[in-house]
Structure formats: structure tokens, C-alpha cells
């Protein structure tokens, strides 16, 4: 016993200890001497036994009794002993220590036996001490905002702007220092008054980063599969409403294109190329916090404004609520998703609460302005009219047709309107506000976030897209860490109000001298019935109202050491209401169309799905072996109900939104469909010496989408990796900090064919009703025998970290083969249908290289520069397609070529004698025809693509940018143009007309002759219509400044962002990223934002 501490007596104590201390000091010396000299003598005394039986006797009497029986002296403060509670004991021949233990039980004293003396002392309370210190990074710079928490409590402090903290802690406690981006440190106080800490950046331990692999997590170092990850830092604060927009260009092998610049529209995501011959068969699987969701909200009425009527589900998640996105690519990573992993898996993990000494509030808001990123240079009025007049002049026509209003004198020929500017040249605003609260202890934490976002369009009318999101997460661990539970929920309400039909194509084609849109009194101008006013379309609207609810429950219990029982469950609910209004006022009143013809279409859809996934996990480490076994089951059920009505004939357009007011109401659909899915899966991961890793995954899947005989199928994969840098011969190489070779092979599948395709049924139709009742028609040619589409995947990859991980390099080669294509086998019309659902023995191969290079070029005290570069070289090939020649695909695909080819005519140029386009007449029959003469196979599509991102920070200033690049060929505007010389505006390039004076002219002289214009049609599908569509785009740029404020308002982050700001391209067309016609191209956006953290 330490004498000092023994004698440390709190001053506030009312008891006078002074005399006792003196006695004790004297006694102590005596005792020590006694011990030394008398130990032998009294050795036998310890063996003495005590017999005591008494009820409610005072402590003092007990001491006397024990002293009587044993001879041991008690040393105590008599004032103190009065506080003892009466003792009741019943001892029979107990040893001294047993007796003392019993008697002191529950008493506010402790005792020590020193020789023949028993020293009784009051129990000393552990003292709270004041600890101060400074937290710095490894260069010695102060780190403000670091959480300093007392372990196992909620108490804690935060470092100030100088990195300093003070905290009152029990002297024997442990402090936890944590800060975003840095590794956590735990330090025992050990009564120290000053503790200075250096935190290391997490980047230094990159290889310890964990990846979410769906059913399990895996360390970067130990993974055997191909997983790309983008974390919150890279996607935060971008002025986008869909996170896919923020990850474009950031991941190798993942090609994302936005399908329209209209808010709320969809994305096309392709992970390692096109596997299936069906468009919808290429969609990846989306999983939000463990719950699989269908990637698209099935819209019925939006096709004219939202391409493919696909509304991406991720619109319902605020990008700032996302902690990370992991994309699983190879067999090793995806086979555990079996039949749904063929096209890759996108895992979205939302943010969770964190242990923190205080509740953190954060307010984040930004405002952005967007315009279309690119426009085309079109003819002005003079150029246009010259084209028009020339057209007729060439044909010797002086009497212009009655409907050639632009040149026959009906319209003012001096007007000029830039229709791109007028119709799609507006400025859209984009604003968002988010409030989040997070906090927690070591055992429990929470996060709640609410946000509101509004976007308008570039159309000249107040269309608006609004989203409101509320998400929350609760996590709890039991004290013994054996049990944990996490519940996350996400609710999103979106309303979108849009024009029903995109007017982008009008903006490119309207005559530049077309009349004004509005008359003097502000009404639509029909210019005496000669003008199809494009903005009449504004009156026809498309609205949707979408609500999404996604919740996930995760339980984990360590049943025995190393043996865990898990349960993952979830519910996803989507309600989607849409209404399309077409009032009669969109038509020229001259046609006499009345409200009798006003129309409204409404569709209401609900999707409810639940998921239940019990799992068992065994993880054990013995010596150099480490094993991790997971087995589990999945049961998922999804019920979709939809109700779709169309009505027309209203007394007044004010009633149009109320379909019951219509004279005619047709119920197009009232459907309920069910999808059920059950699977059993497992994973065995074995590591030897931490450097040889084997990963086996398997899954047996059953899906209701297949006939009873073909419901179940097996999928599986094997993955191996070798951490060669851990080998003895490389371990001490300074330049190589990490090295790994990995490979995987396996089979995954796809069941993306829609429900009930195998049934032999008649379908109820009320849309084609005959006498008003319902009618029934054969649904399809039924084939109950088709089964899963299968993709075998092979991958080999090398990962290396050089110069203490300042350079990280990752190269992967993959080859995926998709066979058993679930595509409607094309049938001639004589069968009554155009196809039958069956497994077509066609094989599509995707192979390619993916390279990732991340470097830290500069890392000094206050200056950090991280740089990431990724590039992918995808190759796609149709390997086999039995019966291709005889099928409707004969003109679309060629065996040995990519799926994206186009068969076109060979354009030879302009015949100098006739001034007409010339094409190669391959079969020499004197005429150009398909399929005999469109023999040229153009490999349209991507050759390589990637991104280069940089993140540079100096003190509190951060600057980052991302370039996205794509090398590709694609169809150009020649493919899309209207017949030159017709009453449609054209790009200025079409002024370059061939003539004897201009023998190098690109375009045939304009003509009204329909025979000659047939050549234009061939030209539009010739080699001239395909050209380079490569581009480099400054996808994102961000500048932010972080200001540390005070204890209450911790910091303020001010940021400026830009999206799609700058594009370098030679492409002849509206936008090289975007080749869908008639839809709005992507927008460029500037935004300014501020984030306050409390």
C-alpha cells in the first residue's frame, strides 16, 4: 500500500484525521519491523480458525471478538467505525480471511492485513482529475473538433481551434480520441494531468479500410473480389438530386449516363458492359441498407418526357445521407447474390450515428443555377431562308406550297428567334436544405436527417421538382458487445411537375423566322392557324407524386464465442401516382377541338416488398489460420398493385384533374402481381498466415418468375488472393508497402424478365373493350420451360501499394460470358406473336481492363494532395447467336462484333456529275436497299472511359475537381437530321452544300424531290452518320473553406461547386454524352452552399 495515497485525505471531509495519521506513521514503522522480525513466530497464527455467530452486533464488538480468538489487532478510527452498519454473521471454523471478507461485506471500509495488524480504512473514492492536452496530427498541426470521450460513458469534450481540450475524468479511466478521417486512439489516463495526442490519418491505413460486400464486410487488404467504393467525402454537397450523377467517372468499369436533363429522370448504369440482349436485362441490382429494391419506379405515363419512362429509385435518397456506395463487379463479389448478380450489385449504405460527447447539429444548404451544357449552332434566318429558297429554286419551283409559310409570304421573313434559347435556354434553379442531428455513446448512437430540395427546369414555365426526405438510424450494442441492433429508416416524398412532352426537338427544328410564341395580349399565337405553337405543349403536363419508405433492421448476437446469429430484415414501400393532362387548349382552336376531347390519364401504383434474411456466422482465428463461415437464407416477397385509368370529355378544363368528372372513363389496368424469391447462400473464407486467402461463395435461388420445373438454380464462385508483399522475401522491401494478386471465377444469373411470363393465360383488357365490358385476349405464347440467364465471370487482378502507400495501383482484367439469353426468341407474325420468351442460346462476352491509380503527390503539414485516376477498356462481343440470320436481329447484330454495332451503307461521297450522294451498291443491282447494301459494320460504342479526380487541401481550404473522359464513336446529327431544305432548321454545317463551285461540299443540294431525298435517308444511315463522339468533361469542381468558430458553433463550411462545366469534344450533335433524341441534354450547374456544424 502506498502510504501517500493512504494518507491523502480530502480536505472537505469533516473528520479530523490528523492524530490518526501520526499514529499511523509511527505504527507503520513498527508494523514493518514486526513483519520482518516476527513473521516466522506468528506463522502458525494464520491457521487459526474463527467461530462467530451473532445478530446485529456492532463492528467494534466484532473486531474485539476476532482479536480475542486470533490475537490480531485492529487499527481503525473509532469515529469512522461508528458509521458501520451492524453485522450479522454465522461462521463455523472459518479462516481469518473468510471471516474478514464476510464481516466487511457491504461495509464502507476496506482492510489490509499487515503482519498481526488489520488496518481498517475507509473505501477511497476514485478521484476525478482534470486532464488537459493538445491533439495534433503527425506534423504537429493542431486538430480542432476532435471528439474526446471517456470510455463507457457519454461524457466528453471537443478540441478547440488550437487542438486543446480539458476534461474532468476519473483518474483510472480511458480516453477515446476520434476524428473523421483519422484513426481512433484509446489512451488510459493513469492519473496523468496532461495527455497530448497525435492522431494519424486514416489514409495511412488504407488497406484496413472495410468494404461492404453485402452479406459481409471485408478489409481492403483481404478482399478477393472486385469492389469499387465511393465514400461520402466524394459525393457530399454536390448540387445533384441523384447520387449516380455524383459518382459518374469515379469508378472503373462502371459506366453511368444520365438519360435526360429533366429533373427526376433516370440513369443508365452499366457495370462491365452489356450482358443481355434486352435493355432491361442489363440493369444492376440495387440494395439500400441491405434491402433489395427495384431500380426503377415503374412509370406508365411519363415516356414522352422521361426517357424509357424510367425514374431512378435513388432519386429518393438525399446524396448527403449516403455514407458509401459499393459496386460489386466480379463473380467473387456477386455470386452470393446468385440469380440477381449478373449485372453487378450497387450497395448503398446510409450514414449512421456515432459516439460523441455531445449532440451534433448540422445545417447544410445550397443554391444552384443550371443551364443546358451544350447547344448547337443552328442557321440564322438569312441562312435558313437561303436554304429554303434554294431548295425550290433548284427544282424550278416558284409557286411555293400553301403550307410553306416560312417562305410563301405568310410569315415575316425578317424575324429571328434563337429557339434553343427561347424554349430550352432558361435557367433552372436548384436549392437544397438539410438538417441533421447525430450523437451517441459507445453503446448507442443515432442519426436523424431531414432535407428539402427544389429544382426547376430550363423550360420557360414554372415546372418544379420537390423532394422531402427524412431518414434516421439507431444503433445499439449491449455492454458486453455480444448483441447489436441497428434500425434505419428512410422516407422520401417527391413531387414532380413537368411538361408532358419534351420540346427539345422543336427547339432544334423550328424555322428561325417562325412567329412569336405569344400574341400581344399574352395569349398563344397560332398566327392565323399557320403555326403549330410549340409552347402550347406547356398546357399539357405530367405530374408525379412518389413516396418511398425503406426500412431495415439488423440484429446480431454472439451466441457462443466466435459464433454469431444475424437477422437482416427490411421493408420497402413505394407509392407512385402520376397524372398526365391533355386539355383541348393545346390544340389550335381552329380545329374546333373542344373540352369533349380534353384527356387525363392517371396511374396509381404501389409496391410493397419485405425481406427476411436469417444468417449464421462463425469466425475463428487459431494460430495462423483464420476462418469465416457465413450461411443464410433469403425470403423476399414483392406485391405490386396498379390502377391505371384514362378519361376524356370534360365539361370544363377546370375539372380535368378530377377524372370522375369525365364523360368517359376507361380503366386500362387494375392489376396485382406477386414476385416471390427464396434463396439459400453461404460463404467460406479461409486465410492462412494472413496472406493466402480463399473465398468460396454459393447460392441456391428460387424465383416465381420461372415455371415450376425451372425455379431453382445454383450459383457460386471461388476467389483467391495472395498477399505477396507479406512474404519473407518482400517484407523488408521499403518501396513496396502492399502487394496482392487475386483471381476469381464463378457463375451468376439474372431473372429480370418480369413476372408471370411462363403462364398460359388470357389477359383482361378493358382498354380494348367491345361492348363496354371487359375483353380477354391470349397473353402470350406460353413456354413454362425457360430458365435463368447465366453469366460466368472470370477476373484476375493485381493490387500494389508503393512508397508507403503514397502510390496505390490496381489493375484488373475480367471476362464475363452471358449465355442462356432470356430474350423473346423472335418469331414470324404467323405465330400470332412477335416472340416467345425462351432461353436463346446466344452468348455475349464482355472483357476488359480496369486500371486504378491513386496517389498522394504531396503530403506535408498543411498541404495535402490526393489524386485518383481510373480508366476502363471495355470490349463487348456477340460470341454466338444460332439462327441470327433468319431473325429480326439479323440487321442489328453480327456474330463476332459488339452488340452496339450499326449496319450502315457505305457512303462514297457526292457524285461530281449528278451532285447526288453515292453509296456502295454491294449486290450491284442498281439500287440501294437493305439488307443487301448496308453492309458496313460500324462499331458504335465506348473504346475506353474513365475519370481523373484530385483533392487538394491547404489548411482549411479545399479544392477538388473531376474530369470524366470517354473515347467513343456514336451516331451524329446526320443520323437525326430532318431532310435538308424542308421546313426545319438545321445546323450551320448543312450550309456546306455541294455545287460545281464547291466540289468539296458535304451535303447534297437541297431538293423537294422525294426520289432524291431517299438518298438523304440512306445518307442518314450511312457511314457519314457515325463519327467520333469522344469527350472530356470537367464533371465536377469544388472549392470549400472551413472556418473554425467557437465552442458552440464548431465550424462553418462554405463551398462553391460546379457540375458539367466544360466539355471538350469534336462531336457533331447536341451533346456527346447524350444521344437520345427529343430529350433535354444534361445541364451544367453552379452552386453555392454553406454548412454549419454545431
Amino acid at each position: 500500500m502506498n502510504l501517500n495515497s493512504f494518507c491523502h485525505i480530502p480536505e472537505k471531509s469533516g473528520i479530523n484525521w490528523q492524530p490518526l495519521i501520526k499514529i499511523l506513521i509511527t505504527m507503520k514503522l513498527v508494523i514493518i519491523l514486526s513483519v520482518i522480525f516476527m513473521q516466522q513466530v506468528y506463522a502458525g497464527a494464520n491457521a487459526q480458525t474463527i467461530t462467530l455467530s451473532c445478530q446485529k452486533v456492532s463492528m467494534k464488538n466484532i473486531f474485539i471478538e476476532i482479536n480475542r480468538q486470533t490475537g490480531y489487532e485492529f487499527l481503525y478510527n473509532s469515529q469512522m467505525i461508528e458509521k458501520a452498519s451492524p453485522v450479522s454473521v454465522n461462521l463455523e471454523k472459518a479462516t481469518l480471511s473468510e471471516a474478514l471478507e464476510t464481516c466487511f461485506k457491504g461495509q464502507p471500509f476496506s482492510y489490509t492485513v499487515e503482519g498481526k495488524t488489520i488496518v481498517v480504512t475507509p473505501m477511497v473514492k476514485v478521484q476525478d482529475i482534470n486532464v488537459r492536452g493538445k491533439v495534433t496530427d503527425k506534423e504537429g498541426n493542431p486538430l480542432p473538433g476532435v471528439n474526446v470521450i471517456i470510455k463507457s460513458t457519454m461524457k466528453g469534450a471537443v478540441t478547440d481551434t488550437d487542438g486543446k481540450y480539458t476534461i474532468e475524468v476519473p483518474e483510472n479511466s480511458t480516453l477515446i480520441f476520434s476524428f473523421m478521417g483519422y484513426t481512433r486512439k484509446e489512451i488510459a489516463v493513469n492519473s496523468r494531468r496532461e495527455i497530448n495526442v497525435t492522431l494519424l490519418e486514416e489514409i495511412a491505413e488504407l488497406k484496413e479500410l472495410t468494404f461492404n460486400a453485402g452479406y459481409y464486410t471485408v478489409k481492403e487488404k483481404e478482399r478477393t473480389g472486385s469492389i469499387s467504393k465511393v465514400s461520402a467525402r466524394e459525393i457530399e454537397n454536390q448540387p445533384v438530386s441523384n447520387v449516380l450523377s455524383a459518382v459518374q467517372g469515379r469508378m472503373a468499369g462502371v459506366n453511368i449516363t444520365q438519360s435526360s436533363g429533366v429533373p427526376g429522370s433516370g440513369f443508365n448504369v452499366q457495370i462491365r458492359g452489356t450482358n443481355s440482349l434486352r435493355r432491361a436485362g442489363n440493369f444492376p441490382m440495387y440494395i439500400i441498407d441491405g434491402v433489395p429494391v427495384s431500380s426503377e419506379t415503374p412509370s406508365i405515363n411519363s415516356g414522352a418526357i422521361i426517357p424509357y419512362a424510367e425514374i431512378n429509385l435513388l432519386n429518393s435518397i438525399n446524396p448527403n445521407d449516403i455514407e458509401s456506395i459499393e459496386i460489386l463487379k466480379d463473380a467473387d463479389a456477386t455470386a452470393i447474390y446468385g440469380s440477381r448478380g449478373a449485372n453487378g450489385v450497387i450497395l448503398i449504405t446510409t450514414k449512421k450515428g456515432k459516439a460523441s460527447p455531445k449532440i451534433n447539429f448540422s445545417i447544410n444548404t445550397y443554391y444552384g443555377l443550371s443551364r443546358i451544357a451544350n447547344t448547337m449552332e443552328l442557321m440564322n434566318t438569312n441562312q435558313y431562308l437561303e436554304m429554303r429558297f434554294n431548295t425550290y429554286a433548284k427544282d424550278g419551283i416558284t409557286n411555293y406550297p400553301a403550307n410553306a409559310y416560312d417562305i410563301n409570304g405568310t410569315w415575316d421573313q425578317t424575324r429571328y428567334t434563337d429557339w434553343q434559347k427561347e424554349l430550352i435556354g432558361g435557367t433552372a434553379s436548384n436549392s437544397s436544405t438539410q438538417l441533421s442531428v447525430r450523437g451517441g455513446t459507445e453503446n448507442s448512437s443515432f442519426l436523424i436527417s431531414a432535407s428539402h430540395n427544389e429544382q426547376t427546369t430550363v423550360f420557360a414555365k414554372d415546372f418544379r421538382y420537390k423532394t422531402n426526405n427524412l431518414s434516421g438510424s439507431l444503433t445499439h450494442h449491449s455492454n458486453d458487445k455480444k448483441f447489436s441492433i441497428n434500425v434505419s429508416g428512410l422516407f422520401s416524398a417527391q413531387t414532380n411537375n413537368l411538361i408532358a412532352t419534351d420540346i427539345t426537338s422543336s427547339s432544334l427544328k423550328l424555322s428561325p423566322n417562325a412567329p412569336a410564341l405569344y400574341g400581344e395580349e399574352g395569349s398563344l399565337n397560332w398566327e392565323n392557324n399557320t403555326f403549330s405553337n410549340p409552347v402550347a405543349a406547356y398546357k399539357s403536363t405530367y405530374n408525379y407524386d412518389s413516396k418511398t419508405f425503406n426500412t431495415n433492421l439488423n440484429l446480431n448476437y454472439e451466441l457462443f464465442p466466435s459464433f454469431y446469429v444475424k437477422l437482416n430484415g427490411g421493408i420497402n414501400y413505394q407509392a407512385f401516382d402520376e397524372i398526365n393532362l391533355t386539355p383541348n387548349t393545346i390544340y389550335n382552336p381552329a380545329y374546333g377541338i373542344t373540352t369533349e376531347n380534353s384527356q387525363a390519364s392517371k396511374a396509381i401504383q404501389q409496391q410493397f416488398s419485405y425481406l427476411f434474411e436469417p444468417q449464421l456466422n462463425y469466425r475463428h482465428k487459431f494460430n495462423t489460420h483464420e476462418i469465416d463461415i457465413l450461411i443464410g437464407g433469403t425470403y423476399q416477397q414483392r406485391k405490386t398493385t396498379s390502377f391505371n385509368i384514362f378519361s376524356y370529355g370534360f365539361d370544363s378544363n377546370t375539372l380535368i384533374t378530377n377524372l370522375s368528372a369525365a364523360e368517359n372513363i376507361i380503366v386500362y389496368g387494375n392489376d396485382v402481381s406477386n414476385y416471390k424469391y427464396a434463396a439459400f447462400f453461404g460463404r467460406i473464407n479461409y486465410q492462412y498466415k494472413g496472406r493466402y486467402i480463399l473465398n468460396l461463395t454459393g447460392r441456391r435461388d428460387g424465383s416465381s418468375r420461372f415455371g415450376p420445373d425451372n425455379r431453382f438454380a445454383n450459383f457460386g464462385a471461388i476467389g483467391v488472393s495472395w498477399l505477396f508483399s507479406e512474404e519473407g522475401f518482400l517484407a523488408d522491401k521499403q518501396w513496396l508497402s502492399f502487394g496482392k494478386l487475386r483471381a476469381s471465377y464463378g457463375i451468376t444469373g439474372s431473372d429480370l424478365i418480369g413476372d408471370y411470363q411462363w403462364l398460359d393465360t388470357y389477359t383482361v383488357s378493358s382498354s380494348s373493350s367491345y361492348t363496354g365490358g371487359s375483353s380477354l385476349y391470349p397473353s402470350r405464347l406460353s413456354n413454362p420451360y425457360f430458365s435463368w440467364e447465366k453469366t460466368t465471370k472470370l477476373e484476375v487482378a493485381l493490387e500494389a501499394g508503393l512508397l508507403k502507400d503514397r502510390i496505390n495501383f490496381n489493375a484488373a482484367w475480367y471476362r464475363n460470358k452471358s449465355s442462356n439469353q432470356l430474350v423473346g426468341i423472335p418469331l414470324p407474325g404467323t405465330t400470332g406473336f412477335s416472340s416467345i420468351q425462351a432461353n436463346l442460346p446466344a452468348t455475349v462476352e464482355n472483357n476488359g481492363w480496369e486500371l486504378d491509380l491513386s496517389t498522394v503527390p504531396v503530403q506535408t503539414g498543411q498541404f495535402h494532395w490526393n489524386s485518383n485516376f481510373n480508366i476502363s477498356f471495355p470490349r463487348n462481343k456477340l460470341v454466338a447467336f444460332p439462327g441470327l440470320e433468319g431473325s429480326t436481329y439479323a440487321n442489328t447484330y453480327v456474330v463476332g462484333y459488339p452488340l452496339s454495332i450499326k449496319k450502315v451503307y457505305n457512303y462514297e461521297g457526292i457524285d461530281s456529275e449528278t451532285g447526288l450522294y453515292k453509296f456502295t451498291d454491294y449486290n450491284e443491282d442498281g439500287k440501294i436497299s437493305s439488307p443487301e447494301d448496308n453492309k458496313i459494320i460500324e462499331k458504335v460504342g465506348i473504346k475506353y472511359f474513365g475519370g481523373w479526380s484530385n483533392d487538394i487541401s491547404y489548411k482549411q481550404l479545399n479544392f477538388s475537381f473531376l474530369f470524366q473522359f470517354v473515347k467513343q464513336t456514336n451516331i451524329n446529327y446526320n443520323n437525326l437530321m430532318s431532310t435538308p431544305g424542308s421546313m426545319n432548321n438545321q445546323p450551320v454545317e448543312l450550309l456546306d452544300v455541294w455545287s460545281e463551285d464547291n466540289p468539296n461540299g458535304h451535303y447534297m443540294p437541297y431538293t423537294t424531290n422525294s426520289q432524291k431525298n431517299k438518298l438523304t435517308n440512306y445518307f442518314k444511315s450511312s457511314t457519314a452518320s457515325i463519327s467520333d463522339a469522344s469527350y472530356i468533361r470537367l464533371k465536377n469542381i469544388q472549392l470549400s473553406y472551413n472556418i473554425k468558430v467557437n465552442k458552440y458553433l464548431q465550424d462553418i463550411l462554405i463551398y462553391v461547386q460546379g457540375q458539367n462545366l466544360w466539355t471538350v469534344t469534336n462531336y457533331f450533335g447536341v451533346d456527346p454524352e447524350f444521344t437520345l433524341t427529343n430529350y433535354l441534354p444534361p445541364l451544367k450547374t453552379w452552386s453555392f452552399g454553406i454548412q454549419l456544424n454545431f
Partner: protein
Amino acid sequence: MKKIYQIVLFCCTVFFPAACEELVEVDYPTNQIATKQVFEDLSTANSALDAIYAGLRDQSVIAGGQYYGLSALLGSYTDELEYYISTQDLIDIYQNQQQRTNTFIKSIWNKAYTQIYYANSIIQGVEQSTTISNDDKNSIKGEALFIRSLIYFYLSEVFDDIPYTVSLDYEYNRFIGKTEVTELLEQLELDLQEAVSLLNDDYRNSERIYPNRKVAELLLAKVYLTEQKYPEAEQIAENILDSPLYQFQTDINEVFKKSGQHIIWQLKPNSGGNFEASFYFSNAAPKSYALTQDLVNSFDNNDLRKQVWMSTVTYNGNMWYRPDKYKDRTTSPVEYPVVFRLEEVYLILAEALAKQNRINEALPYLNATRERAGLTAFTTSSGDGFINELLAERRREFFTELAHRFLDLKRLGRLNDLSAVKTNWEGYNQVWPLPESELLLNPNLYPQNTGY
């Protein structure tokens, strides 16, 4: 290690499916009924028939209002309609330059065979039904046979040799060969004779929107006429005229009214006006088609049909004519699109008699419609003169209705006369090309029709 994997795999493959087979069972969706079940009940079997009628009305060879129908396509292909807008495939048909890849021709073909499949499916369904009464079975099968024959008849008119199938087996149908047109017509005779024997004289619905026996007989008469079997055609036509169900309509304003006693078969519309939608325009230039000047000129100025069944639209100094046979554009119209009316029986009989050199007997049947239109009676003793007038009268009576003009010219061997007004007309234009996609998928359909 391997053992564990094997055990896992064993469990997966053996125990799991047994337990889970039921987990992935799903009920039928609410909008679908098992095929077998459809024909266990008369009302669902009738609903299956209704789907065909709706299809006939909305998108079939005889559909009136849409581009799918032959009324508009063949109207512009011959000398009835001018085409005004810029859909290339429609321009090609109008200019007699249709390609093998023409989407409208392909659509005519595909829609026709879809409806043929539906009819075959119903025929097979009722034959196998154990719960529907024999009378009902007969009437359902009779209607389906009639519809199938009607579609085959029109298809053979535009494509000549075509595949004839009564099977539902796609393995058979996908490689089926062509049946020669003469053989096909003989087959249609048999089918229609069967339909006649199965159908009742009474209409299933008083609005005459479902075919009765006489409807099948009329189509049979048309088949005979095409085959130049004039006595047979004559007999059937007489037979229909003898029926107490029908009465000649003498008021030109009532010809397209749904309640007339001259209506033999009409389709129930969704709403008014749609069946002439392709032709409809007012106060502006034509939306798609307008009547040709040639057709307008073929009418005598005091022909009531010119005054009542067409209207003029003047706009920007131009004047166009459009068909105006159906005037009621409301949602519950007094007019239904007519497929067969008694006038046609008169003219079939006139033709059958004339072709048997019984001109005098034939004349009253030709003059009935003339007189109703306020024209004087036509007289002649020359067979050719009669046929010429018959052709002209049919043109005036049935303009823009169900492609009568093309069928008449073809039957009477006069299609090449079109070259007088159609500059691109070539002899091979008497038939359309078979859709290219069909030939690609089914090599047994070769050769392509000559000229294409």
C-alpha cells in the same frame, strides 16, 4: 474444408428446395385467367370473342379510323385518297412505291395473324370445353371461323399467296409455307360453309354488332364472286335478300345510322367519329388524307352522295374534300361503323347476274343505289358497259369504306387502269410485298412477291 462446402452444397440442393418450393408459388395475377378456365364459362368465352371484335374495330384490315386499316391505306394506294403529310412509309404506299420494309404493311400482316391466332385459340378452347352448352359452342366457333375467314380473305387480296394456319403451335406456325390463293379461297369456302352451319339466323345482339348466319353467307358470296363462281354467289345473295331481317334503306341520310334494317353487320364503336379519324379535318389543311379530285369528279353534281357523304374544307384559298359518311362525333353516336350493308348484296347480285349475261335481271340491283342518290336509272345491254358502270357505282357507293375500291378493281382485273392516275403504278403493284422481317424469320415464305 472441402467437406464443409460439400455439406453446405448438399443441404442447399436437397433440403432447401423441398422446403422452399412452396415459398415461391404465386397466385395468378388479377388481370390474367388460365386459358383453360376462360372456356369453362360462357361469359368469359364471349369476352375472349369481344377482344377480337375490339381488335377488328381498332386495328385490323377492316379498321376504319386508323392507319392500321386497309380503308385508308388502300384508299390512297388506289385513286380515292390523296396523302398530305410526311410519314415516309405512308407516302410510299400512296405513291405505289412501298418497300418490303414498310412498317404499315408489316403491321397489317402481324395484326392479322395475331387475330387469326386469337380466333384459333377460341376455336380450340371451345372445342375442348366441357361446360359450355353445344348451342353456345356452335355459335362461338361459328363467329371465330367467320372472323378468321374475313381476315384471310383480306390478306389474300393484298398479298396473294399467304400461309393458312388453324394451329396454335408456334413450332409449326413459325416455318409454315404459303398456300396458293386459289387453294386458300377454296379453304375459305369450306370454313365459311361451316360457319354458316354453326351460326344462327338471329343476331346475338339487336344492334347487329355480332355476325349472324347471313353475315357469314355474305362473305361466302364475296369469296365466290372472287372465284368467279357466279351462280353460287347469286344464290347466296338471293338468299340474303329473301331474309325478313333486311330491308333496303331508301333515305340516303339514314344509310350509316345504326338502327337501319339494311345493316347486315356493324361494329360497336368506342365513341363517335373515330372510324373516319384518318380522314377528318376541318378549318385547316388535311391532317392526313383528303379525297382525290378524280374521285370527286366521278360524281355527278346532283348525286346526293356527293352532297351528303362528303364535305368541303376551305382554308387559305385552297379547297379539299373529305369523306363525311359518319357525322356523329359524340361519345354515344347514332352511327356505328358498318362492315356489311344490304347495298353490297344488291351489287354482288348485280355482278353475279351480269357475269352470267343476265343484264336485264341485274339492272334493278345496280339502279337501287343510283336512284336513292337521286340519279336516273342506268340502262345498257352491253356486258362490258354494265360492268364499267357497276365498277363506277361501287366506287361512288363505297368510297373509303373497307377498301372496296381495291378489291373491286382487282376482282374485275382492272387494277392496271390505275396507271392513268397513279404515275408510279406498275403491274406488280397488284400485290404488296411480303414483309421482309417475315421472310427473314421464315425462309419457307420465299419467294418474295414479284417485283419487290
